[in-house]
């Protein structure tokens, strides 16, 4: 009987979902409780099927060959227990048996589930359910956190844009410098440094530097019109200004 089964199985190897599927089929063919099955007999049957299949066609999927190799090892250990490590093969056989039982249990579970009256096939729900739930969307959901983060977002965005606007001029302008130099020029008898023409109370940094450049531009402008002389004795040295002595001449 076992042989007949084996021959039949060789031909329909592809019908199995894998080596474990075939092993379970062979085990079930032994018609005994899986817990009492002869693993050695099972292994021999499996190897016979694989051998038969290889005679029919050479190529076999890798997982079949891997299982066959492992079962060949198992068979040799079961037949000739190694001295000193007898539990090796027994543990392996137990694992195989447990796996077969687990798969068998899941097969039965699937069968049990399939036998239940299934929704949409054996039993049906109400086809036209009534929707008695009403959605009230009249209220607003407003949270303080949302209001505040919205405010911050708006202000930050606007603040970001402000950076592109021209800043109001608060610096000492050339116009201011022209007036100041003109006013002070007469009261200073000789060469005076440019710093002496700066307004009082200037902040250091940009305002001071702006005032220096404005005053220099004013000085250059006035020198062009012959109203004052400019002098710088060395590079980066102090810039000196004085009222033109020959204010009527054209040689300035």
């Amino acid at each position: 009987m076992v042989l007949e089964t084996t021959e039949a199985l060789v031909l329909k190897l592809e019908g199995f979902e894998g080596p474990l599927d075939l092993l379970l089929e062979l085990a079930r063919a032994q018609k005994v409780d899986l817990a009492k099955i002869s693993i050695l007999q099972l292994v021999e049957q499996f190897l016979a099927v694989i051998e038969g299949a290889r005679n029919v066609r050479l190529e076999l999927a890798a997982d079949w060959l891997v299982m066959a190799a492992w079962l060949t090892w198992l068979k040799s250990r079961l037949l000739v227990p190694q001295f000193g490590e007898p539990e090796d093969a027994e543990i392996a056989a137990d694992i195989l048996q447990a796996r077969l039982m687990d798969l068998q249990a899941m097969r039965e579970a699937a069968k049990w589930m399939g036998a239940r009256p299934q929704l949409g096939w054996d039993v049906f729900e109400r086809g036209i359910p009534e929707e008695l739930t009403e959605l009230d969307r009249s209220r607003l959901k407003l949270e303080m956190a949302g209001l505040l983060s919205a405010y911050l977002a708006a202000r930050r965005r606007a603040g970001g844009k402000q950076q592109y606007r021209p800043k109001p001029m608060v610096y000492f302008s050339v116009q201011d410098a022209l007036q100041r130099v003109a006013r002070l020029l007469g009261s200073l008898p000789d060469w005076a440094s440019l710093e002496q023409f700066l307004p009082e109370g200037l902040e250091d940094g940009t305002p001071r530097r702006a005032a220096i450049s404005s005053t220099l531009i004013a000085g250059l402008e006035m020198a062009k019109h012959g109203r004052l002389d400019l002098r710088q004795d060395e590079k980066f040295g102090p810039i000196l200004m004085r009222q033109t002595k020959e204010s009527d001449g054209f040689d300035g």
Partner: protein
Amino acid sequence: MDLTVEFTPAMRLAEAAIFAATQPVTPRMLANLLPEDADVDAVMAALRQAYEQRGVNIAVIGGGWQFRTAPDLAPFLRKVVELPRRLPRVAMESLAIIAYHQPVTRTEIEEIRGAALSQNTLDLLLENGLVTPKGRKETPGRPTLWGTTPAFLAQFGLNDLRELPKREELLIDPAGPALTPPREAELRMEPE
């Protein structure tokens, strides 16, 4: 009430068919389903009578039969689920600016937001009673001044506008370069 109804196999089948069908079951559909010798009208008359006093009735809708909740029970079963709307971001920002800068003109709101304020957004705030006109500004064109309403306070659970966090507390560096919005958690000062 005491209902004595004899349920024939045809009635059971009609009952199940009307229950499971995804559309009202017409007399023709039922005639196809029931045994040939069944009297559809009689079956349905009996079935409808059986359900007459019950929590669900058989109604004739769209040329067919279907189960419907008894009208007197519907109010008990009707569940009103509140699904509050949220204000769009633009509306929320505008509302926040009005709250903090009131009374404020539309142009001022736009300046503060750094973006145009659409009529839709203003309408949304008005419809929900969150803002209201507060007179006019005595400048050329006499633009309308906007402010928040008592409903605004109620929505946010405020007794008074002074309960809003101070601007200085919020805007630590208003013109600063940080454009990433702060994390929500940092703003959540009101326990919900």
